[in-house]
Every structure is written in structure tokens, then in C-alpha cells.
């Protein structure tokens, strides 16, 4: 489980995160939801340590992260897998080398074991027989799946996904969403997904945190999000006419 307490972050005097607290539970798909520019990605970067929060604490299974020693930070980071918005695959490496990379650098596993593990992870994300393809030769959806395979190859305890559906068609988005949910439940990972995609919310949102202009306005799940009385959340969820008319009818 990951806990965050009173996270504050400002850039050039502009507050981006205003005292965010919350819990991300193990074995569940935890969503950070909000419109563009509300601080979702900044919060994610604070949690994984790519950005230092101005104030606040982050606990990975009760291990404090923000003020942790360098060694503890590295230890925790080696338990983290992350899927970036664009996949962040290494251009100079093929699919197999990309997925094997954490094992190459962080473990002393023999080559045949590493290959077995890589092939297992690629099969798990539905990408058998793509080992020798370069990132430039595969589609956006495939890049995301390779990113997921790389994130889980080292048996990560925590999985972070930054807008996993950006730039994908609705069908592929659902495929990626379901893959994230299945992997989360299968390996009992603590998964945190940053999104503004309502399809994802309805599909995989076990635990949802809604951010608006740097504040946490609501917390719940995909069952009760449509019944919220928070105006900003309703404006976000029922942003289009069809959804609004459906809500009015119900």
C-alpha cells in the first residue's frame, strides 16, 4: 500500500498540489482523475520521486520515501514499475532488450532465465513473436504493452501508469485498461493510474481520487462516481450532452 500525506508542490509561486492526502491500496487499481493541468502527473512524479514535493510524506508499505536515505530510495525504486505516457521505450533497443533491461542492469540472473522471464511477460501482454522488433516498428498500443511488460518483468510491487490510454483508439484503450487491472489483481500489485479518460474510470476504477486545480475534491470508486454531489466532478464526468441527458433522465 502507498500512502500520501499533505503533498504540496508549487512551481514559480503557482501552487500545483495543495495538501493532497490519500491511500492507494494493494491489489486494486487506484486512479488519479482530473482534467488536464490539475496536477495529476505532478502528483505521480512526486510519488515516484521524479519531483521532490515542497512538503508532505509518501509511504511505501510504511517506508517513508521523501526523506529516505539514498540507499532506501534506490531499494524502493527497484520495486517500482512505471508505464509512461509515450511508452518511454529505449529507441536503440529492440522489444526483447527493452523488456530485459531491468533484469540486465538490476539483477545477476543467468541469460536463459532472463529470456524465459521476458518471454513470459511478453506472452502475458499478448506480444509473442515481437522480440526482435524495434520500437519504431510497432504501434502505439503495442508500445504501451511492451512498457507494461518492462514494468512487471522485475516482479514490481508497485505499478504506476501515466495516462496509459493517451493516443489510443477506444478498443485498444479498453485492452490496455483490462491488462492493467488483470495484472494488478493477478500479482497483487499496488497500481496507480493517472487518467482523464472516463472509459478507464468506469472500466477499472477500484479506488478513484479526483483532483481539481491542485485540490483533492472527491474520493470513491467507479460505482459511486456518477452519484457524487461534487459540482466540479459532475462537470467533469458529465462533460458531454449525451452524458448530461442520461443523468437528467436517471
Amino acid at each position, binding site marked *: 500500500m502507498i500512502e500520501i500525506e499533505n503533498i504540496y508542490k508549487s512551481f514559480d509561486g503557482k501552487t500545483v498540489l495543495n495538501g493532497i492526502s490519500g491511500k492507494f491500496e494493494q491489489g486494486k487499481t487506484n486512479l488519479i482523475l482530473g482534467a488536464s493541468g490539475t496536477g495529476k502527473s505532478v502528483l505521480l512524479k512526486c510519488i515516484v520521486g521524479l519531483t521532490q514535493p515542497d512538503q508532505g510524506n509518501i509511504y511505501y508499505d510504511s517506508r517513508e520515501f521523501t526523506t529516505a536515505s539514498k540507499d532506501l*530510495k534506490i531499494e524502493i525504486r527497484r520495486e517500482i514499475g512505471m508505464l*509512461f505516457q509515450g511508452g518511454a521505450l529505449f529507441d536503440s533497443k529492440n522489444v526483447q532488450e527493452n523488456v530485459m533491461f531491468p533484469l540486465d*542492469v538490476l539483477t545477476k540472473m543467468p541469460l536463459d532465465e532472463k529470456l524465459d522471464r521476458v518471454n513470459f511477460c511478453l506472452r502475458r501482454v499478448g506480444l509473442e513473436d515481437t522480440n526482435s522488433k524495434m520500437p519504431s516498428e510497432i504501434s502505439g498500443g503495442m508500445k504501451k504493452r511492451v512498457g507494461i511488460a518492462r514494468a512487471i518483468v522485475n516482479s514490481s510491487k508497485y505499478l504506476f501508469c501515466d495516462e496509459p490510454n493517451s493516443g489510443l483508439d477506444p478498443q485498444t484503450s479498453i485492452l490496455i485498461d483490462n491488462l492493467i487491472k488483470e495484472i494488478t489483481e493477478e500479482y497483487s500489485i499496488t497500481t496507480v493510474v493517472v487518467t482523464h479518460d472516463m472509459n478507464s474510470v468506469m472500466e477499472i476504477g477500484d479506488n478513484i481520487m479526483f483532483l481539481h486545480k491542485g485540490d483533492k475534491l472527491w474520493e470513491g470508486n467507479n460505482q459511486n462516481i456518477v452519484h457524487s454531489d461534487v459540482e466540479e466532478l459532475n462537470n467533469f464526468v458529465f462533460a458531454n450532452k449525451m452524458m448530461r441527458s442520461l443523468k437528467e433522465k436517471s
Partner: protein
Amino acid sequence: MFVANIGKYFMFLGSLFTNRESFSTYFKLTIEECQLIGINSIVLVAIVSSFMGAVTTLQTAFNLVNPLIPDYVISLVVRDMTILELAPTIIALIFAGKVGSSMASGLGTMRITEQIDALEVMGINSSSYLVLPKVLASVLMYPLLVILAGILSMVGGYLVGVFAGIISPSDYIYGIRFDFNQFTVLFALIKSFVFAFLVSTISSYKGFYTSGGALEVGIASTQAVTTSVIAILFADYFLAQLLL
């Protein structure tokens, strides 16, 4: 701003040597970089240095109009200019343009496509993992390129001098060997180590801290070359003042 950048540059240099990965990881990466930085630069260095020697021979001969000055002075001038300045410094400027811009744009692209963030999230010291092999490979390969450039420059001068009838082969060889000071070779090698370090670290620094998009990668690449060239010229002056 300038002082802040200098401070950030030295902190960046410090980060190359902390939380390193295993020796075998660096060994493999350094060999790969040696290929990219050294082997792939041989053709360009060979062409530039051969013409450099040829043109120096022609221009020296053009200026030596006094019949009292013996012909072998031409190759003596070519030798000293090549070893002291042309091979280490002019090739360093070429090196900054070819290798430095490639390092900056490569790292800049990795930064804006979140590949560097991916390394950091995995708990890998990205600056050390990505930059240290480049610095090591540069420091290993650039002196070899300078030696090659020095030899080819003198060979270029010989070919032009002899085939254009400017100087006889024996006079050219005599001038090359005349009153040779071995320290000039050591001086050229010291310069090449310093220039290689400056080009690789400055270019990597510029690329590593790129933010934005494709436009900024281009800007970082240009800045890497400009700053490296200025640093080379300053270092050239200080080393000459200090060691000669």
C-alpha cells in the same frame, strides 16, 4: 545564471561517479560508445587531417619565398603546426561538431521522451549510466584520433609537397625529423585528453538537462557545440600558457 550553470555542471560531473552500476555494465556500454565515438569518426578525421596537412604544406611553401630558407623548413612547419595545434585543436572542433552534437541530441531526445525518467524510476543513476561511458569512450578514443590525424596530416603534406614538386621526399623527411622535441607529442596528448573531457561532459550536460520538445533538442545540440568550442579555445590557451 552563468555561475549557477557552472555549479550545476560540476554537480552533474559529481553525479557521474555516485551510485554506479556494475563494472561489466559500464564496460559493455563503454565499448559500444568507443565504436560510435571513435571508429565512426575515423573517416571524417582522416579526410580533414589529410587536407589540413596538404594545405599547410602549400601555404607554407607559398610564404617561404626567400632562397636562403631551406626547403625542409616547410615540413618542419607542417610537423610543428600539426602536432602542437592542428591535430589536437582543429580536430577537437570537428569532434565537438560531430560527436558533441550527437551526444546532446541523443540525450535530449531521451529526456523529452521520458527515457531518462524511466531509468530514474528503475533506481538507476541515469547520468552515470548514460554519460560516464560516453566520457570514458571519448577520453580513450579522442587521443587515438589525434595521433591518427597527426600522422595523416604529415602524410597529406608529403604527398602534396612531393607530387606538386614543392619539396623533395628526402627534404620532407629531413624536415619532419629535424630538431624534434618529443614533449610536443606529450603536449598534444594532454590537450586531447582535456578537449575530449570537455566536449563529452559539456555536450552531455546540455543534452541531459534539455526540457521541452524537438525545438529544444535542436537548441541544446547547438549550445553543446558552441559551448564546447569556446571551452576548447580557452583550454587551448591556458594549456599552452601553462605547459609550453
